[in-house]
């Protein structure tokens, strides 16, 4: 199809419209010609009619019994008779009484029959053997002596056809010329209309991973091409965003990996230079192993995340009581709160059940509560609350920490993002805790967000889809 119509859209469109136009014009030409021909014939017929009347008026029988046509002045004039009229006169019993000399042996149709009640016959076109086309009309005529004869008069159609073909010729030249002009104009217009596509394609081809900040220029955002361009630009923006995140992630990850590596290296190099007792070397090696553990933890976290990204995590979904899970998670980190003399309370509705993989969801909760303990001051308090609202099951983790500035609230879930860079690293965090929590919640179809007042507290809110319990409906039976 595309081979037949040309490869590019512009040609295809032009060819399509041109064919459509040509077909329409052809139809138009046929209609006009037919109408024109009919019109010409009607004119011919009415003049034939008039001529017949004239012939009736000047026809007479000469004394020698011959049919004669009188001249206008009343004189017989053979020439007159033959000048324009192609005439046949038939008796009502089918005998040929007269035929113009011009006709020779050429009859004007078959032997006429008198049909009672009909005094005339409608006009007919015929073609002589010589090729001449004529229009013939018959009429019943009563001679003065009361005898009925049939007059049949014909006029040449040649002028009519000449007229007709002239008209066809005009159409035949004019219409293709119009089509041609329209094709050229259409092609140019299509080229103009599609020029933004060309420029967009060129520009899009130039956009590589290094130039994702570039955008397509859009002349008119409201037309179809503008919409396409806008959609493309939005896609570019999203792509740029993920690329940025990935780039930042890679940079951050290598930075995070470099920190323990640097420590291992410098500790090793320094203690090689110095000489010490066994205790000193043991201490050095221990210090290096600590950093190794940190690297291991980091790599494991990264692995967890990348497997999560790849969607390779198998979920073991069971109905889980959120309050139980929250209590279990809190009990793990409870000792840390106790060390800081903090109050850690888990409260809420014990009937809140969700379908979850408790191991994965527990990771989210442990990370959040661990964070809350970390950021709440000594003697502070932490509250974990479980509740059901209309749409979802909700867990809130309130802390009494410094809170998170509103402008940073979206970023804290980014990998390796730290509000207070030096502090968390010193406390041994990987910078991935909240990302892992977010993933763990998202993988259950839930959301996580931060609320609270900056400067006074943070509230991490997890919303999970409620379990549609079949047990309640079954108990009704």
């Amino acid at each position, binding site marked *: 199809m595309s081979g037949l119509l040309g490869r590019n859209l512009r040609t295809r469109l032009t060819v399509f419209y041109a064919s459509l136009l040509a077909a329409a014009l052809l139809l138009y030409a046929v209609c006009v010609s037919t109408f024109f021909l009919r019109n010409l014939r009607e004119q011919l017929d009415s003049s034939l009619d008039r001529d017949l009347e004239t012939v009736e008026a000047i026809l007479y029988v000469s004394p020698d019994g011959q049919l004669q046509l009188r001249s206008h002045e009343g004189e017989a004039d053979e020439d007159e008779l033959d000048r324009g009229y192609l005439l046949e006169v038939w008796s009502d019993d089918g005998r040929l009484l007269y035929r113009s000399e011009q006709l020779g042996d050429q009859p004007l149709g078959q032997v006429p029959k008198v049909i009672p009640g009909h005094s005339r016959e409608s006009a007919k076109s015929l073609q002589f053997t010589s090729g001449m086309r004529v229009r013939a009309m018959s009429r019943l005529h009563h001679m003065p002596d009361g005898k009925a004869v049939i007059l049949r008069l014909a006029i040449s159609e040649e002028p009519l056809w000449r007229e007709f073909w002239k008209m066809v010729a005009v159409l035949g030249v004019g219409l293709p010329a119009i089509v041609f002009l329209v094709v050229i104009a259409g092609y140019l217009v299509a080229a103009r209309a599609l020029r933004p596509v060309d420029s967009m394609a060129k520009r899009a081809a130039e956009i590589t991973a290094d130039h994702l900040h570039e955008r397509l220029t859009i002349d008119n955002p409201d037309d179809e091409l503008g919409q396409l361009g806008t959609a493309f630009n939005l896609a570019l923006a999203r792509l740029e965003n993920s690329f940025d995140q990935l780039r930042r992630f890679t940079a951050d990850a290598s930075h995070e990996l470099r920190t323990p590596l640097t420590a291992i290296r410098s500790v090793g190099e320094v203690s090689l230079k110095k000489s010490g007792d066994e205790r000193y070397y043991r201490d050095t090696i221990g210090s290096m192993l*600590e950093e190794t*553990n940190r690297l291991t933890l980091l*790599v*494991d976290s990264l692995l967890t995340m990348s*497997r999560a990204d790849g969607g390779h995590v198998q979920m073991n979904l069971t109905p889980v009581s959120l309050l139980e899970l929250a209590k279990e998670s809190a009990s793990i980190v409870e000792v840390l709160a106790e060390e800081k003399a903090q109050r850690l309370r888990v409260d809420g509705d014990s009937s809140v059940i969700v379908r979850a993989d408790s191991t994965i969801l527990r990771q989210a909760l442990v990370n959040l509560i661990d964070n809350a303990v970390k950021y709440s001051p000594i003697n502070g308090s932490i509250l974990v609350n479980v509740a059901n609202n209309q749409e979802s099951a909700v867990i809130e983790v309130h802390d009494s920490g410094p809170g998170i500035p509103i402008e940073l609230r979206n970023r804290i879930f980014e990998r390796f993002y730290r509000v207070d860079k030096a502090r968390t690293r010193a406390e*041994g965090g990987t910078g*991935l805790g909240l990302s892992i929590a977010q993933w763990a919640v998202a993988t259950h179809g839930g959301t996580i967000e931060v609320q609270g007042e900056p400067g006074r507290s943070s509230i991490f809110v997890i919303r999970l889809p409620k379990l549609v319990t079949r047990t309640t409906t079954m108990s009704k039976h």
Partner: protein
Amino acid sequence: MLILIVEDEPKVGNALREGLEAEGYGVVLAPTGEEGFFHASSRRFDLIILDVMLPGRDGIAVLNMLRKQGAQTPVLLLTAKDAIEDRVLGLDAGADDYLVKPFAFAELSARIRALLRRNKAEPEGVLAIGGLEVDSVRRTVSRDGQRIDLTAREFDLLEYLMRNHGRVVSREMLARDLWKETVRATPLDNVIDVHIARLRRKLDDPFSAKLLHTVRGVGFTLNEEQS
């Protein structure tokens, strides 16, 4: 006890050999799958430690061949890829256990002991080191006849250390075996440290001889001698 190690990375292989020899095992080290298979089919080993990623014939293939020959030797797989498919593949091929690299040596040592004493029942009843007595049935602890009250978690921790006394226990082992945490990404290290500190306060602080020691960078050990 004779152990075969099939590991292509020389540093890792030699470290494992030295470590295991220090624990009193006899060790044969094979750097390729083919050599490993040759050793395994020509001598009797008590245990085979098999790296999955080997040049040439990989660990799984070697394991398959060994099992086809009818060898019942326990096999511990070492895998660098923490992928579920890998584990399933290994366990299907007849591995008895697996360990994901990088692992702590203490962990490896514990796994080896577990595999070697398989089918042997855990000692029940009272465990004792020096003056410390732990009754795992009644869940009571006393030192030099003095009763020590422990929380449930502290008791589990102490019992675990007792069962592994004289050896180092890593935080990862504690997280997995006591906290049942399969994912190392969960922040448990601080939690474990706090529990150890509390246990130490109750166990060692009132006495002059210290039993619970921290081995920096590695883990904890319960030991009569000062380290």
